[in-house]
């Protein structure tokens, strides 16, 4: 990296940080379509300290009776500081029995992960978890 680019990237660093937080906000707005989520009912499980951001065990669950009348329709997961704000979207229904999904994710930095859940009555709920990442994903060549 030449010096000029280095100086420029230092100058832009705080701006880029807010840009990424904004990107998460925009991605959430696109899913919510004007609705306001309430905090609660959504639980994210992530290890508090991650040594390798390339594969991080992630679980999300939503408090719901999962009946025909009252169930979770979808769960949407977002991050603050990866190059892209979306992680995954999961669509379920009363036949799931439980609203619980697990996968493995990539995290580029120490950050907050947010999940939004839409219920069958159209209401939105949210939950979040913070995670410290010591070795970031995505950027290095393996």
């Amino acid at each position, binding site marked *: 990296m030449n010096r000029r680019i280095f100086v420029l990237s230092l100058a832009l660093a705080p701006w880029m940080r807010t840009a990424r937080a904004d990107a998460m906000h925009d991605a959430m707005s696109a899913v919510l379509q004007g609705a306001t989520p309430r905090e609660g009912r959504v639980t994210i499980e992530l290890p508090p300290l991650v040594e390798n951001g390339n594969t991080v065990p992630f679980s999300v669950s939503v408090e719901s009776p999962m009946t025909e009348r009252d169930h979770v329709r979808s769960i949407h997961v977002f991050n603050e500081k990866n190059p892209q704000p*979306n992680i995954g979207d*999961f669509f*379920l229904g009363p*036949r799931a029995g439980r609203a*619980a999904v697990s996968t493995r994710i*990539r995290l580029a930095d120490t950050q907050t992960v947010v999940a939004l859940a839409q219920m069958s009555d159209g209401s939105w709920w949210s939950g979040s978890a913070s995670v410290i990442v010591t070795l970031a994903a*995505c950027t290095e060549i393996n």
Partner: protein
Amino acid sequence: MAARALLRVPQRARRGEVIEIRALISHIMETGFRHSERGASIARDIITSFRCTYNGTEIFRARFYPAIAANPFITFTTIATESGTLRFEWSGDNEFTASESAAIMVE
């Protein structure tokens, strides 16, 4: 390259029981945000969609983004309603498709 899928579906279940399903598929999940040693950007190559049907009816669907780790692994649940077949389908960039099935006996 043929993708290898691994499933964990109970062979037998009681009717009405909530069963846990696990599905893993081998895939690089190249994010599109990495660069080669020479600085060229490496094109995105990910699985974007996963779907599970139970005797033809969709019971679970997911959209994946580059933040899903390589060899996508997913765990979810369903109610054992009747004997039959669970079918799993993955699709993604570069016309990637893969599918796998598992039989279940419900008593």
